[in-house]
């Protein structure tokens, strides 16, 4: 029988460090370790009710809070933008509860939590990328239900995803499917990389740093350990196409970044990664 004192000790202080109590953190960490050991696999974890809405980054937030320490410097972006309200609210929640620094500069951050973009400036091996995931299973929509999809994954049966690529090929000449194009990890595991744009898909390959994926609503984590082999799901004779703006960023003149057209000033394109855009125009010190 456990005493209240022991329970309290195990649970941590009344206001736990980094919001989650130690037991919950340990569980998320175990899932992360398992995910790193099985790159691309969806690992279930008992997702906690978080102080933000489910589907708003609650999974990635649990991942970040489970790995963050007082020496970390945290950056959170939404669509590449540090100033987005949701990103700002989470950044402040993480920094406050974990008593750590926050930044908007990719180069300064030790942990970058992101919704639907991989930062434009490549991360180093001492940095960590945490991606928010709304729907972790690329087969679920196609198979119609989660149980069938799980069985297909277990059998390595990716027919439905290939069939969809084929239909895309016939209908629209292949190329990108919009955001979140499915990828093959280490040639074996089919993974949904979260709704990142086609531009970011090839950038998942052979990264020097780990990438952790958190889906809070559907209670799954996934991981790519450093130097994972990641390829978009596409036919050998039909290369994966990345649409290009063809117009330089109106802010920093970049021709290589991922750019989005302005609706207020049609014809002008802007980097979706605001820190990258700023760092190009910021005076070099």
């Amino acid at each position, binding site marked *: 029988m456990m005493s209240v004192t022991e329970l309290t000790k195990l649970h941590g202080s009344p206001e736990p460090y980094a919001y989650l109590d130690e037991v919950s953190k340990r569980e998320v960490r175990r899932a992360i370790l398992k995910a790193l050991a099985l790159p691309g696999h969806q690992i279930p974890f008992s997702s906690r*009710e*978080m*102080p*933000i*809405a*489910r*589907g*708003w980054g*609650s999974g990635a937030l649990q991942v970040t809070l489970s790995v963050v320490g007082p020496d970390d410097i945290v950056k959170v972006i*939404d*669509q*590449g*933008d540090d*100033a*987005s*309200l*949701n*990103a*700002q*609210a989470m950044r402040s929640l993480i920094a406050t509860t974990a008593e750590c620094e926050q930044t908007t500069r990719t180069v300064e951050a030790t942990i970058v939590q992101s*919704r*639907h*973009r991989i930062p434009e400036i490549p991360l180093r091996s001492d940095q960590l990328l945490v991606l928010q995931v*709304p*729907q972790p299973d690329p087969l*679920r*929509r196609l198979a*119609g*239900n*989660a*149980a069938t999809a799980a069985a297909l994954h277990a059998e390595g049966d990716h027919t439905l995803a290939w069939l969809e690529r084929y239909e895309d090929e016939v*209908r*629209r*000449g292949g*190329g*990108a*499917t*919009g*955001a979140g194009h499915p990828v093959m990890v280490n040639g074996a595991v089919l993974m949904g990389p979260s*709704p*990142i*744009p*086609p531009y970011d898909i090839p950038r998942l390959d052979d990264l020097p740093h780990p990438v952790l994926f958190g889906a809070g*609503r*559907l*209670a799954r984590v996934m991981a790519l350990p450093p130097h994972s082999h990641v390829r978009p799901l596409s036919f050998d004779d039909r290369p994966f*196409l990345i*649409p290009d703006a063809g117009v330089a960023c109106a*802010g920093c003149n970049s021709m290589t970044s*991922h750019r*989005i*057209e*302005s*609706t*207020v000033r049609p014809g002008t394109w*802007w*980097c*979706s990664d*605001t820190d990258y*855009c700023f760092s190009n125009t910021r005076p070099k010190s």
Partner: protein
Amino acid sequence: MYATLASSTAAVKNARRLALASSTQSKASVSEQSLLVHQICAEAGIWAPDAASRALEQSGGELGRAVALVRVWAATLPYADAKTVSEDDIEITRHLSAAYAEIPGGQWLGPSDEQAPRLLTWLDHIDPVDVESERRSDLIAKTNSPGAVTSRRSDVRRVRDLIVEESTEPSTPKGDGPDPTRAALTAPFSRLGRLAALARSETGALVSFSSVVMESRREAILLEINSSIVHFDVAHPRTGNQCRVSEVPIVEAEAVTDILIDGRASLVLGYGVSLGSLERRAIAIAVLDAVLQDGPVTLTLDDGVITSAFDGLSATGIVEHLRLPHYVSFAAYLSSIENEEDLEQ
């Protein structure tokens, strides 16, 4: 700079204060402004906040019974013909798009506590909101982005106009639809009939079904969401002068989902409107309207649905997350459609 809902801490604070101001206005346990009252009015299909709070009290807080009380009461009221509201009489208090980073007229936060942490406080006294010292309209103005000059619906461009060439030509019905309280709807409904039935549907059902439907789609993007106040005038029976009889809060949402038209990938536009200010109702209706224009949907009931659609927080989360910016994925989807069009030319 190019940013959606650029974080001005002041804007978030003011949005929260506005939301708190509405919820703590009355000392009574159920104030007329309570969102619960909005929900009862919406599900009853009549804007009658005083009747709704009375019904809530008489039902002991049982929502289903309260809605029934109001619907039964309303069924015996004298019936007037529908009157079309002019867009000049709709005052927008909140105006957001998830599809684009910037929209004509600007992104306005309005009253909202969506970004405030969801933490229960055990303090007896919640930070008193001094609404008297600051006019509501001042607070609303402070949550708006610079450049917003007007809040009349007729002056604010609809976001759907930006994608009109991509989207399917939606059957934009004009005029009165059948009133579900008076007409016998027979399937298949007209789109107007369906929208009328959805507008007074039960909130939980709308959100659950919408979350299930979204699971089977590639894209569901919220083009626009507005909270507005409709100033409703009628002609005085004797003098014929226009008299203001009510100021009705409404939420409007427009969402697009992917659709195949003659084998071509495209978008279909859905519209949702609800009485009151419960945004998830309007978002869910817009998603369902879009999907149903593609024809009937076959739904599966399985264990996955139990965790994702029957769990209120989970279903609400996925429906409300449509409010978050999606402009990167939406741009990617639009570009894949354009890719297809180029191929055909």
